[in-house]
C-alpha cells in the first residue's frame, strides 16, 4: 500500500473514532430508570395527569418497513429485552418506549416537538432480534447494541462491536467510495487480516498495526486482498462474485496500482 493512502486511511480512522466516541458509553447497560419505563405497570393510572407508557416496534418484513404497537416487554439481561409480538422478525429492529405525562400545557405545545421534552421521556433501543416461542405466546428476543434518547435523538450507549462495524462502514464509504454489506464484510476481514486494532477511550486512543500497513507494498496488499476475496467467494457463492470483482477494481483504482491482469473472482 502506498504511504499516501495509508496516511489518508489513518486520518479517516482517527477522525471517525473521535466523532463516534464523543460522549457515549461503549457498553450496554439497561439501567433502573430505563427498566422502569420498560416494565413498570402504569395501567392503574386512571387520571390523565398521571403518566402512561407506549411501546412501538419498527422492523423490516419481506423487505418492507413496518411499525407496530407492542403490548408488553420484559428486561431479561443487562442488554436483552423480551418483546411480546406476533410478527416473525429476524434482523435489526428498533424499539421505542416512551412515558407521557403532564398534560396541563397549552394547545400549541403539542405542535412543538422540541418543547414537549417535559411531557415525555423515553429511549430507543436498537439491536438484532430473534423470534421465540414460550408456551402459546410469541415473543422476540432483542439483543440491544445501541440506546438513543427518544426526545433529543442523542446516542447514549453503544457496544464496541457495533461501533467497530460502523467505523468500518464509514471508512469504506469515505475512503473507497463504496457501500453495502459485502464491501463492509470484506473491509472488516481485511482489517482483521492486517491486524489493525482500535483501542482506547474518548481522550486516548490508538490504532495498532497502522505502521505495518504503511510498510506494506502494493503487491503484498493485493495478494492478501485476493486471498480474502477467494475465501469470500467460497463462503457466499457465485452471485457475489460479480460485485466482488467491481469492488476489487475500485480497490486497485484507489491504490493507484496498475493491475497487470484483469481481476476475476473464480469459484472453486
Amino acid at each position, binding site marked *: 500500500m502506498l504511504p499516501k493512502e495509508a496516511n489518508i486511511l489513518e486520518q479517516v480512522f482517527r477522525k471517525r473514532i473521535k466523532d463516534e466516541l464523543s460522549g457515549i458509553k461503549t457498553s450496554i447497560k439497561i439501567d433502573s430508570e430505563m427498566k422502569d419505563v420498560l416494565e413498570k*405497570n*402504569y*395501567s392503574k*393510572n*386512571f*387520571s*390523565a*395527569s398521571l403518566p*402512561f*407508557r*407506549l*411501546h*412501538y416496534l*419498527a*422492523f*423490516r418484513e419481506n423487505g*418492507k*418497513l*413496518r*411499525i*407496530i*404497537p*407492542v*403490548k*408488553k416487554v420484559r428486561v431479561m439481561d443487562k442488554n436483552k429485552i423480551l418483546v411480546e409480538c406476533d410478527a416473525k422478525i429476524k*434482523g*435489526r*429492529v*428498533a424499539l*421505542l418506549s*416512551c412515558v*407521557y405525562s403532564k*398534560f*396541563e*400545557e397549552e*394547545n*400549541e405545545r*403539542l*405542535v*412543538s*416537538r*422540541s418543547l*414537549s421534552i417535559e411531557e*415525555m421521556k423515553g429511549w*430507543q433501543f*436498537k439491536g438484532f432480534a430473534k423470534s421465540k416461542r414460550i408456551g402459546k405466546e410469541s415473543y422476540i428476543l432483542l439483543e440491544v447494541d445501541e440506546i438513543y434518547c*427518544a*426526545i*433529543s*435523538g442523542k446516542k447514549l450507549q453503544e457496544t464496541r462491536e457495533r461501533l467497530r462495524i460502523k467505523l468500518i*462502514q464509514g471508512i469504506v464509504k469515505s475512503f473507497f467510495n463504496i*457501500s*453495502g*454489506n459485502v464491501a463492509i464484510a470484506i473491509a472488516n476481514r481485511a482489517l482483521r487480516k492486517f491486524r489493525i486494532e482500535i483501542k482506547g477511550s474518548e481522550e486516548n486512543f490508538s490504532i495498532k498495526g497502522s505502521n505495518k500497513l504503511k510498510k506494506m507494498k502494493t503487491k503484498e496488499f493485493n495478494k492478501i486482498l485476493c486471498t480474502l476475496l477467494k475465501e469470500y467467494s467460497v463462503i457466499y457463492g457465485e452471485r457475489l462474485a460479480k460485485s466482488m470483482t467491481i469492488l476489487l477494481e475500485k480497490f486497485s483504482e484507489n491504490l493507484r496500482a496498475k493491475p497487470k491482469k484483469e481481476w476475476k473472482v473464480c469459484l472453486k
Partner: protein
Amino acid sequence: MKITKEMKEALEETYMPLFNPFLPYRVLYLATCDREGNPNITVISFAKVIDNKIIIPDIALLKSRLNIEENPDISFIVALYRNYQPVGGFGIRILHAITKRLISIDISLLGRIKLRILLTLYKIFKRFIPRAKYKISLRKEPKYFEFRGKAKIVRYGKTYENMNKFMKILFGKKFELNGIVEIEIEEIKEKKLSDHAS
C-alpha cells in the same frame, strides 16, 4: 391509496389536553431506515394531509432526515389513546370559529353518567364559545392507521412556504423551517387498537 376522512381527522385533529380524564392523546410515529436496513423511530407531533400526501415539518428530524435521503421507504403510524385506553365512544367536536381549529373531546360509551357529563360539557362550551360549530359524534371502534410509502425532503414550493408561515406563527418570525417531509402513500393498514398502552 386514498386517505379517507377518518384518517385525515386522526392525523390533523388537535386534541386539547384540558379536561381529565376524558381527553384523548394522539401519537404519531415515523419509522425510517438507512441503506443497510437499520430502522429508526421518531416521535412526530404534527402532520397535515395535502393532495393525498402526508406533510410533516422537519423540526429536529436528525436521523430520519439522513435516512430519507438514503432510503425513501418509510412507515408512519397514528393512534389515539385516552389515558391508557384507546379512544372510542361519544365525543364533542368543536370547530373554533376564530382559530379554525378542530378540537375533540371524547367520552367512552359506558353508562349514562358519562353521557350526562358530555352534555354538561357541551352546554358549558356553547355558553362560553357560542360562535364555534359543535357536533356530537359517536366514535367507531378504536383503531390505528399504518401508512407505508415513499418520502422525500422538500425545501421549496408552495407547500413548504405555507408550512413555514404556519411555523412562524407558532415559534416566532425568526424561525426558519429546515424543510418538509412529503410522504406519498403506497399502502394503508387499518387495525384494531386493543389495550396496548399500559
